[in-house]
């Protein structure tokens, strides 16, 4: 069939969103990438798998592209004893770190890649050992190793000095290392070093019972637990050919939109605080707490962990709860509107927000900025609008975009999205639909692929699963989970150039990227 102008031998996965999978050869790997890029498509994820024991019989590199028709998942088997493949970074800059991660985990390298420094391996395992290859871990002795040095890029020049920050940061934040090169207060360059939280999640997925592993998915990034659980369950359901009921889908969307609102409320408060407006933090954190407390009462968990399960959802809500949830939407809407006016009219706040940490639309397009931050830089993409899957297909989601790409734009998108999510929540509560909350799911007795794709509050979350049901194996052979932070972290390095060091926390918060979801 023809996708993105190419005729490919594709298989459509039985997922609620249009997702195709195809196997390609090394010659077409870059041709396809260029074709996707020329049509305005984007690279969603890149990962590698050890399929030496599967049908491919070798290591496989995979990429996932977003094109107009949907998602295109391409597999490139490397062939016997080969471990390199054509570099995609010149076409999609965001590929660079994903390729470095694949090199650390599976020992596959992008031919001629400009940056081949390790990314996730800080010395915790020996350089020649690749933890996601079969049998690699038995050979890896358990002794703790020394942390290896990392070759940061140095900026030379008169009066340039370096400020290293982290991995342990000054607030209640996740760990990561930032190396600033500054002149006076002005940032000339920022270089990030991430991977501190790498705890081997993808390996762990293959060790857990397949029907239990959704709990791990919900703990890839705690602030996006609903998005990950949904994407993961969607992947498992797609490989099992299981359809969830209308009611289960509506309840999932209810949870996802509540997660979006919870995070936006938290961020708007923190952004006010980072601009020395403590009032904002006090007000928004109060609203967030009210929001979480009702989540605890309605769904049994403040962050709504483990509410989405394979086949559907773990809970249902009665009319009384539904009314309370709807009432809270009205209440929060009024409060947020009042606070938006306060934010908009506060000269000091606007002064800190406007033109700070700018990513102009052209730069955003070139670097592949995605999700919420992308929409604040004119990138009109939101899966809920572009590929509306149930129940979004009946909700007509309004996308919010801004063109300035500064902190103010990212604040504005958050305000708009809260409003829109509250509208969606009320619509969902009016009509949750029928059906059992949890459908039976039978895992296949053969090898199968599954994929899940969801617009979380930060951006697109993607999950790819390789299932092995042959001969009663019943195991997940490979699970790749992708966070939109992979795309956006490198753009943050650009966003701070020319800003002053004290504005970094504000800029960083306005992106609010995930360390856990990236480091895995």
């Amino acid at each position, binding site marked *: 069939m023809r996708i993105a102008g190419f005729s490919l031998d594709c298989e459509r996965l039985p997922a609620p969103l249009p997702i195709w999978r195809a196997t390609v050869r090394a010659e077409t790997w870059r041709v396809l990438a260029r074709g996707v890029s020329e049509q305005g498509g984007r690279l969603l994820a890149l990962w590698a798998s050890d399929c030496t024991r599967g049908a491919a019989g070798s290591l496989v590199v995979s990429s996932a592209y977003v094109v107009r028709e949907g998602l295109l998942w391409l597999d490139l088997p490397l062939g016997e004893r080969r471990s390199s493949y054509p570099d995609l970074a010149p076409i999609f800059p965001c590929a660079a770190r994903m390729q470095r991660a694949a090199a650390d985990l599976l020992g596959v390298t992008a031919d001629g890649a400009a940056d081949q420094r390790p990314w996730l391996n800080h010395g915790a395992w020996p350089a020649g050992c690749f933890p996601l290859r079969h049998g690699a871990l038995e050979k890896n002795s358990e002794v703790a190793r020394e942390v290896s040095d990392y070759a940061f890029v140095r900026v030379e020049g008169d009066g340039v000095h370096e400020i290293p920050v982290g991995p342990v940061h000054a607030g209640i934040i*996740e760990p990561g290392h930032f190396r600033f090169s500054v002149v006076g207060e002005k940032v000339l360059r920022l270089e990030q070093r991430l991977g*501190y939280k790498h*705890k081997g999640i993808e390996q762990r997925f293959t060790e857990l019972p397949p029907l239990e592993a959704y709990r791990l998915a919900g703990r890839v990034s*705690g*602030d996006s637990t609903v998005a990950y659980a949904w994407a993961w369950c969607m992947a498992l359901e797609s490989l099992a050919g299981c359809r969830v009921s209308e009611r289960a889908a509506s309840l999932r969307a209810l949870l996802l939109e509540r997660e979006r609102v919870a995070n936006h409320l938290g961020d708007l408060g923190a952004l006010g605080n980072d601009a020395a407006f403590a009032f904002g933090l006090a007000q928004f954190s109060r609203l967030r707490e009210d929001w979480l407390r009702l989540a605890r009462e309605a769904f049994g968990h403040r962050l709504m962990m483990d509410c989405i399960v394979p086949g559907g959802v773990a809970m249902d809500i009665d009319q009384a709860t539904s009314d309370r949830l709807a009432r809270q939407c009205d209440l929060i809407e009024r409060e947020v509107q009042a606070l938006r006016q306060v934010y908009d009219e506060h000269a000091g706040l606007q002064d800190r927000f406007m033109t700070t940490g700018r990513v102009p639309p052209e730069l955003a397009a070139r670097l592949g900025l995605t999700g919420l931050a992308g929409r604040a830089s004119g990138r009109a993409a939101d899966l809920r609008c572009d590929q509306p899957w149930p129940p979004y297909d009946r909700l007509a989601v309004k996308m919010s975009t801004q063109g300035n790409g500064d902190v103010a734009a990212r604040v504005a998108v958050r305000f708009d999205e809260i409003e829109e999510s509250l509208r969606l929540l009320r619509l969902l509560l009016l009509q949750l639909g029928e059906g059992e909350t949890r459908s039976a799911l039978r895992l296949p007795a053969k090898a199968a692929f599954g994929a899940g794709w969801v617009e979380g509050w930060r951006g697109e979350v993607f999950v790819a699963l390789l299932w092995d049901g042959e001969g009663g194996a019943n195991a997940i052979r490979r699970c790749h989970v992708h966070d939109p932070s992979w795309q956006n972290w490198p753009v943050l390095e650009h966003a701070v150039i020319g800003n002053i060091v004290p504005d970094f926390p504000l800029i960083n918060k306005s992106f609010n990227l995930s360390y856990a979801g990236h480091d895995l």
Partner: protein
Amino acid sequence: MWRILRQITRQGLCSEPPPECSDAPRVEAGRIHDELLTILGQALAVRQVDAGSCNGCELEINALNNPYYNIEGLGIRFVASPRHADLLLVTGPVSRNMALALRRTHDATPEPKLVVAVGDCGCSGGIFGEGYASCGRVANVIPVDVTVAGCPPAPIDILRGILTAVRRCRAAPG
């Protein structure tokens, strides 16, 4: 400005324990506040270290700063440097990549110091367990005084964990 003031006065103080007992967490918070003051009689400086969590625990620790719990009002402060800290609040299974940083942070904290491990991951390694990149529970890397179970524990439980550590330290000085 007028809007800000109006919002502040309209909201009033929400950290006070309200008279009705239906809102149990708020009453509980009030009780813990009183107790902390009697035991401590001074400010407590807390350094939070995320050693590899999923960030869920951080969200709930952050929630302690909201007006409902209002722990700063009590004299518990989150500080930026371990050198100013009396207590380390550590989350996550300790990733191998964070083990050294965690050990260094612990070394930099002046004696007498307390360590509270927060969350199922901090207590036992949680769902991540031990593996090629995870050292498991916090106690595998630095000595731990008190653990707070939960995934993530509710803010009030984290507060209770801090209080327990302080109380133990008072009971057995040195």
